């Protein structure tokens, strides 16, 4: 009965093993949140619906051809100028009477858009257009809307539209979320995102 008690296992290297695992997980962890341009597709259409009649001057035609060239109102344009051109078109406010735009700061050119609520940007692309060029154009057009919305939000509510949307998502926001939502709706109503995408041409 000379049983020897088992020697105690040395736990000194446990920390090393744990560190090894820790470093493995540290390296492999990607706490990524996907982000991107959010868009809403139009609902499917029945074939026999007449498209609404729009005045030619209220449509801003942006076209991407198969060589990835950007054509705005049938004239070639550099991508960096697109944002400026879109803002100029949306903010023109050339309408009179019922269609007048009180807050627009544009040129009020009668041959351009009447009112931001009427102005439509039509984006047309070819089947062979590159996706990244398309995204770049989408990005610039969304930026044009955001710039104008920021400007009006700053004027009416003292903070930018981007801040307002951020506050809406923030759980620690102290103000009233109901009125914030109303304010956001007001701005969205002033500059509705009317971005129409035509079926790509062959």
């Amino acid at each position: 009965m000379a049983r020897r008690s088992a020697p105690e296992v040395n736990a000194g290297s446990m920390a090393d093993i744990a560190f090894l695992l820790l470093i493995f997980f540290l390296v492999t962890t990607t706490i990524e949140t996907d982000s991107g341009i959010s868009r809403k597709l139009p609902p499917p259409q029945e074939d026999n619906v007449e498209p609404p009649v729009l005045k030619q001057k209220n449509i801003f035609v942006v076209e991407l051809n198969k060589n990835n060239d950007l054509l705005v109102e049938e004239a070639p344009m550099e991508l960096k100028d697109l944002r400026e051109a879109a803002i100029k078109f949306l903010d023109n406010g050339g309408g009179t009477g019922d269609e007048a735009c009180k807050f627009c700061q544009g040129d009020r050119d009668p041959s351009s858009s009447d009112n931001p609520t009427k102005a439509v940007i039509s984006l047309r692309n070819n089947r062979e257009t590159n996706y990244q060029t398309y995204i770049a154009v989408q990005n610039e057009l969304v930026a044009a809307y955001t710039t104008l919305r920021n400007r009006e939000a700053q004027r009416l509510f003292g903070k930018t539209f981007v801040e307002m949307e951020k506050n809406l998502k923030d759980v620690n926001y102290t103000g009233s979320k109901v009125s914030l939502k109303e304010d956001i709706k007001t701005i969205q109503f002033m500059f509705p995102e009317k971005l129409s995408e035509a079926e790509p041409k062959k």
Partner: protein
Amino acid sequence: MSKFNKKKSGELPAISTASLPDIVFMLLFFFMVATVMRQNTLMIENKLPQADQIEKLDKKDLVMYIYAGKPSSRYSASAGNQARIQLNDKFAEVADIKAFILAERAAKREELVPFLTTALKVDGNTNMGLVGDIKKELREVQALKINYTTRTGEAVNNIE
């Protein structure tokens, strides 16, 4: 010098490192829980374009992913070198998208279905024709909320 030597008796004991494994384990468990392993093994090239007008997709469980791009070099022999769609872990045809969306919807609780977003992870060098076809399919199954997943950066960088 004797003055200093005397003090030696009252020296502080060495700090015990016995609790170090506990701390490390705690960190380890945190990272093990927080780690999200990639859901899908990509079989295509997926270099996303850049944009700066972006929104975050917070609720991961409410996102359906559709990948598209050229098959990566490992699969180019079997799948060709034209841009393809990838759903889950398989190459798919445009016609498979409807079934995929419906299956994803069926797997979610009914009250969450209206909040589902489709994230399009499309390689920058894909033709718009394929993207247009995907969008057409999505419209037909009423999956209208989409998100073009991009990297953060200047849009001008997309055009070399």
